[in-house]
């Protein structure tokens, strides 16, 4: 098929204007009825989840701050560091027969 044959097909199709009068009849009435029905329908529960975003963000930040503070406090405390190794050292001494 060459370009001229294709253009001929397009010309023929262009000459045909689809008749939309039947579908257009009473269209505004149906559309307004739909818009009113959409408005009257209660919004689904998940439609409001985005409004909780600030609360979720605050919780995430709070957890982050708390984690950093706890980690910082633990690593700087010598007593905590020694105490955390105590159980392991005791077990190793028991198994090897060394005295503490």
């Amino acid at each position, binding site marked *: *098929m060459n*370009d001229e*044959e*294709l253009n*001929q*097909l*397009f010309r*023929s*199709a*262009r*000459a*045909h*204007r*689809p008749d*939309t009068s*039947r*579908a*257009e009849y009473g*269209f*505004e009435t*149906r*559309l*307004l009825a*739909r*818009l*009113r029905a*959409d408005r009257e329908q209660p919004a689904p529960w998940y439609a409001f989840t985005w409004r909780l975003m600030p609360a979720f963000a605050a919780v995430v930040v709070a957890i982050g701050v708390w984690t950093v503070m706890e980690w910082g406090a633990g690593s700087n405390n010598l007593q905590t560091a020694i105490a955390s190794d105590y159980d392991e050292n005791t077990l190793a001494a028991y198994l090897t027969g060394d005295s503490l």
Partner: protein
Amino acid sequence: MSAHFDELSDERLIQSTLAGDDEAFAELVRRHKRKVFGIAARFARHDAELSDICQEIFVKAYQKLKSFRGEAPFEHWVSRIAVRSCYDFLRATWRDREAVSLDGIEIGMQPDGNVEHARELLEWAMAKLSADERLVLTLLELEERSVRETAELTGWSESNVKVRAFRARQALKKILEANHER
């Protein structure tokens, strides 16, 4: 009521709609539905489908009305929504369309210029194109819009429209040739 709206500009009707007057929106629809139906009719297979597509278009227009800035006429703005909605519709129904058979359509080109036959053959072949190929050919070849207008309506660049149109024509020729050889 309707006579009162007749005198108002589109901008005033939009303001009234945004203030909660549904009848003002109905008047806007009444004014511009012919254009929207004309666009959608190139893609719909029957009246019910056409009515559904047009409802989607005007519901979207209603929901986005706040974003209308008045930089272009309302008709252009709603036409853009119409074209993009038709594109979404084509993408959603592409699989159904591809399966359309040639039953009842005479195979092969007829030199006598049978308009109805040519229209059916083209409709069948275009149903086999992808959504963007069909959209670009419909706007350029059937609606006779310029490359610039097509670019504005689709949101694609002008060079992108030209490339897509070239590829779409090649694809359409292949489909018609394959059909001709059968």
